[in-house]
């Protein structure tokens, strides 16, 4: 199994959505695309799924070039970031419909749908019209349709949107299980979604890959650059402007800061253990995106 993304570039009028993205996936596993909103993750996903043509570059699957795209579609499961459902159909009917679109044989479809629905905890609502489903339930239907054809390549674009904490946890377990025999490419801006389950984390910003490494390598790289300190309110502006702040938690005297920096900020911070989120901030170093991230995460 081999999926190669070769020098993919996509322009929207004058805006560059993704630029010269080159990735190779040769073994099954969970590969995570991490980036802020508008970084180009969804565009890349759409290009791989065949929804958008790249301006330059191509996708190769199992040594077949772009012209053999249908072969990839046969083994592809795709959960888009935004999707809709036919609200007059029930969950079973919609999944049978999508099964027909994907060319899943009727018997296979009838066998798999209840299994997936049970796994995603929506089996009891299988005969309810989708118009009556909540946002989280619709998201699970989206996940179900992506798994319907037992895909070899699974693209999940922001899959945990609308899921409650327990559903997120179940979903992460499911991904871990599935990654043993599938190439799973998951895009997210929520670090906790991928923290303990990814085989490779690909950080993306302004359409470019800024870092690509395994979680353990990322953690090694930031071993001595994560710092914590307490500051007063008066010092807040100074630190905000000068340092790359990951967390800012209010306390009695002012704030407790978590900073990523190659050197000890002002020589008075305490070195602490880093995590993937620290690593992300270390590589991004972009204040605006950092603020976006704060608002999404918390």
């Amino acid at each position, binding site marked *: 199994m081999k999926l190669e993304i070769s020098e993919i570039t996509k322009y929207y009028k004058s805006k560059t959505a993704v630029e010269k993205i080159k990735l190779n996936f040769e073994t099954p596993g969970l590969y995570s695309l991490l980036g802020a909103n508008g970084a180009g993750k969804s565009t890349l996903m759409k290009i791989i799924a065949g*929804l958008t043509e790249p301006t330059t570059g191509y996708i190769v699957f199992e040594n077949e070039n772009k012209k053999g795209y249908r072969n990839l*579609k046969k083994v592809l499961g795709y959960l888009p970031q935004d999707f809709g459902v036919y*609200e*007059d159909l029930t969950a079973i009917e919609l999944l049978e419909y999508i099964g027909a679109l994907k060319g899943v044989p009727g018997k296979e479809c009838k066998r798999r749908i209840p299994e997936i629905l049970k796994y995603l905890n929506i089996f009891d609502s299988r005969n309810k019209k989708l118009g009556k489903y909540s946002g989280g339930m619709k998201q699970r239907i989206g996940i179900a349709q992506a798994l319907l054809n037992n895909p070899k390549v699974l693209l999940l674009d922001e899959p945990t949107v609308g899921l409650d904490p327990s559903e997120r946890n179940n979903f992460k377990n499911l991904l871990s299980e599935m990654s043993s025999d599938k190439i799973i490419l998951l895009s997210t801006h929520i670090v906790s979604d991928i923290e303990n389950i990814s085989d490779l984390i690909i950080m993306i910003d302004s359409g470019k890959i800024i870092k690509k490494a395994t979680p353990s390598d990322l953690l090694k790289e930031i071993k001595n650059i994560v710092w914590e300190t307490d500051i007063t309110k008066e010092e807040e502006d100074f630190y905000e402007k000068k340092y790359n702040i990951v967390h800012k938690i209010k306390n009695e005297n002012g704030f407790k800061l978590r900073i990523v920096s190659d050197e000890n900020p002002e020589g008075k911070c305490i070195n602490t253990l880093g995590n993937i989120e620290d690593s992300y901030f270390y590589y991004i170093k972009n204040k605006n995106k950092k603020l976006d991230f704060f608002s999404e995460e918390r």
Partner: protein
Amino acid sequence: MKSIYKILKLSNFELIRFLRNKKFVFIMSFTIFAGIVSIAPDYYPFHIIISSGRGIYNSAWIGIMMAIIINLFLFILGFIIIRHNIEDDRNNGIDVFIDSSEITKNQYILYKHFSKFIILIVISFILIFTSGIMQIIRGEDRNIDIIKLFWPFLISSVPTLYFLASVSVLFEVVKILRRSLGNLILFALWMVYSISIDPQPILDLFGMNYYFRTVFKKSLIIIGNPKIIDKYLVESINYSAEFYVQRLIIIIVSVLCLILSMKFFKGFKSFDETRKNKFEDLIEKNLFKEKNKNFRFEGIKSIFKMNRIKFNFIEMYKGELRIILKKSYILFILTVFFSILNIERFNITTYYISLFLGMIYISEIGSREYYTGIQKILYSSYNFTLRQFLSLYSASFTVLTFAYSGILIKFLAEGNYRSIVSVFISEIIIISVIYIFGIILRNTNFLEIILFFISYILMECGLRITDEIYKIHGILYLTIIFVLVSFIIRSIQVKLYKK
């Protein structure tokens, strides 16, 4: 074989969706009503498809009547039902699943075409089934002959419905035909083929020429209060070889349309902007030009964060004007063109064409919010209704005045100021009617068809409605009432939505 199975299976789900849709109840009520009225007793005050004589109500006659009903009325009504099946997939957000699945574009077009055709066939079957029951109820001949009942439908209606399904797909695939221009072409087709004319047109699409020559012994009237003076027995209908050839040609033309659709279909990418996004974009660019410079439109959610938005009437008027004019520039040029034709010499046909086109141009003013979901923004805004209402009226009025400029120039040149005022009054009434019906019907296509029939009937009656309306006693009061009613309906709509 696998492809055929796939198309059948997907069409099956399309049919399920249609049968569960609220539209279905409405369509079936109308269809059954048409079935009943078309084989009504002689004393009924209202009939459709009648001549001064009619056949005994047996299976052969009723079968013919149903074929005509289907060809004449289901052609238009069915078009509304199946008009936007492809675009619906885009707007429903299903397009992403379709695009990422292994279904090819050709398979998708074939599936959409087949499902449209099947929906039309199902409606027709229900209509004919109802008519069979009506035959027993009428009691003039209680022997139901299934073959005679269905034969005219199979021979004359199935090719027409197949053609309609093909045209409907083509009109969705070709961008320029997706909206009012496509509707207009279909209305034109309907007008040409719904009447029996001599010499016969190249294709007798509805079979009207044939039926008129062979079945109806006297004049044929569609909708009216007849006096049946003659009854005769029609035992069966034998179609001529020429008729079969005509049906075959219709099928061939339909297949060609289908092939063209496959060729032109570039996937959902060609539907660049969904209707919702298009209006969001227009709103962003036009209606929300805020006085407060700090406000930035960042999607619907950002609007909810705003407690109050101050709207400037002039800005809103300009915004509404841009939204209306975005509809179709070609249509606007056509409207002005037909209007200008009247400057030198008045012609009732061009007059009504420009009148109808002008109405088509503003036909979305009452219903556009429903299919865009933009009402969440509009209604959440403080004191928005009155200003939006007035700006919408003013913008529509401006557009109609331009659209009828030819007629107005003619009156101006003649110094006929009364007629000019009359045109202005008509414009306000037209806007009110379109606004009210738009809000109530929530369906632009359906509204356009109503407007088409109104224009058609007025044209047939030879009434120059816009320049003679001032003669109606109390027309000014009536106009004010119209405006008030539309405002009240709009206010109720907003209140109901907020509840």
